[in-house]
């Protein structure tokens, strides 16, 4: 919490940016908290007892809506024990203003993008810059699995040797989660528009509470599997694209990020 209370760092940064801001001693205004999971108020008590203030940055848009950046969601119970200082910053245009603050907070607090509300990331244009960070984690898992599969295939093609993973006794299909989960994921990695084709009698599982057509005959005499915009091959992830994405991540964000990602996904 100590790091969060560095008032001087915020002042310095705002001054360097040439931002227009006001500094108010008091709790933050009502608004949208930008962080996804904030510390409970009890975590702030130690810092407060030492006389350190809780620091908030409140970006205000032209409609008077506040986007609040802080470690602890302010509650009335904090009023008796904590001081708070709120830097109210004009975020105009909204995207640029939010973008700068999100990056500042992420850097100084060592927070991954995933710590922020997706809506705030999107409004701040972070998703356009590093789209990957805004993608659902399940998609990431699949991409990593696809990349691993590709590496495995290459290894086998090169010498028929076992991958390190197999040597370690882990399943080549996944990161060692339970079989059912893995099976489910793999089931839809194939994607929409793969022609169905997993069943010929129309009684296959579809993933409801028990996931079955309880009765009725479902004809499957079509071959293109869906037809709509989801049709075709894009439901399956293109392995070359996955590899390219990972290379791009490494190039833009560094090797460390790729490794952190892999660790995060239990790969």
């Amino acid at each position, binding site marked *: 919490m100590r790091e969060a209370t560095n008032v001087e760092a915020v002042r310095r940064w705002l001054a360097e940016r040439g931002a227009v801001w006001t500094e108010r001693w008091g709790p933050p205004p009502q608004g949208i908290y930008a962080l*996804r999971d904030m510390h409970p108020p009890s975590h702030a008590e130690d810092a407060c007892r030492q006389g350190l203030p809780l620091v908030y940055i409140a970006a205000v*848009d*032209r*409609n*008077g*809506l506040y986007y609040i950046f802080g470690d602890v969601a302010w509650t009335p119970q904090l009023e008796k024990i904590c001081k708070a200082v709120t830097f109210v910053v004009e975020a*105009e*245009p*909204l*995207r640029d203003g939010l973008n700068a603050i999100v990056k500042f907070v992420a850097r100084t607090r060592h927070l991954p993008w995933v710590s922020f*509300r*997706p*809506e705030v*990331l*999107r*409004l701040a*244009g972070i*998703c356009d810059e590093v*789209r990957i960070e*805004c*993608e*659902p*984690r*399940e*998609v990431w898992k699949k991409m990593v699995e696809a990349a691993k599969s590709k590496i495995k295939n290459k290894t086998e093609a090169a010498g028929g040797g076992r991958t390190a993973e197999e040597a370690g006794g882990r399943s080549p299909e996944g990161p060692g989660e339970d079989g059912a989960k893995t099976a*489910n994921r793999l*089931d*839809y990695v*194939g*994607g*929409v*528009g*793969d022609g*169905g084709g*997993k*069943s010929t009698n129309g009684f*296959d*599982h*579809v*993933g*409801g*509470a*028990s*996931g*079955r*057509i*309880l*009765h*009725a005959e*479902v*004809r*499957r005499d*079509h071959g293109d*599997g*869906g*037809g*709509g*915009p*989801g049709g075709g091959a894009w*439901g399956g992830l293109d392995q070359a694209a996955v590899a390219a994405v990972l290379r791009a991540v490494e190039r833009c964000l560094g090797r460390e990020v790729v490794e952190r990602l892999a660790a995060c996904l239990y790969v």
Partner: protein
Amino acid sequence: MLLSGVINTREAMVCRPRIDPSILIHRDPRAWVELLGWKCVEAFLERVREVGVRDLQSLVDYSFGAPSTMWILLAGVEFEGECAPLWEDYVRQRRVGMGARTPFPRVEVGVELDVDIRISPAYLLLPFNDVKRNWQRNAPTLLKYIPEIPTAVDPHYYISMAFPPQLRDLAERGYVWVANIKSRGRRNHALAEWLYWLNTRRMPHIDIMLGRFEPRSSIDMIVAKDCGGASAGCRQNKRRLKCLHFAGV
């Protein structure tokens, strides 16, 4: 009809929509103009300019790709008319109805499916994290395949990827057919809405209102013929009755 030179008076920001907020995930600029009107579109554009959106097409695309940000962006727009309460609820209270909007006619198809999706795609308008429990309770089938609905980042793209192909295939039999499949005694209107939205990127009830419903099989012609055309606005219940009546059920 020109979008340039938006007037900045308070009056210009008043919007009189003839449709509920689910148009925000309806990727058809024509429908936006027809059902929201230019005044509304201009009011919306005035707000989203802050995030780099410049014209109607970009607005429709942005909204379709980030529906759960729209309540933030539209804060401050004033609504009037029959549909205003639905918009006010969305923008000020962050509330959107969960159920299906489409008045699919009732027909007996004699099929029962163990699937549990009772939430309309329109629920994508709310941030997933804020209403996660509702998704878990009312769309467990969907969450089984995509546990975290990316409501702020291209939900259509990711849900299309994750949606069980076996369920997507059901659309071949027609959306009306799907809507009338039973699951635990109730019909699957929401599932039919999802399939239509995934296939067309548009909401079926809006297409029905505008006479643009895309039938997928002969059974869908009931909707195309008898439930489309006239403006229903936000009086969906009345419309549903009318539609069922004309469907001869």
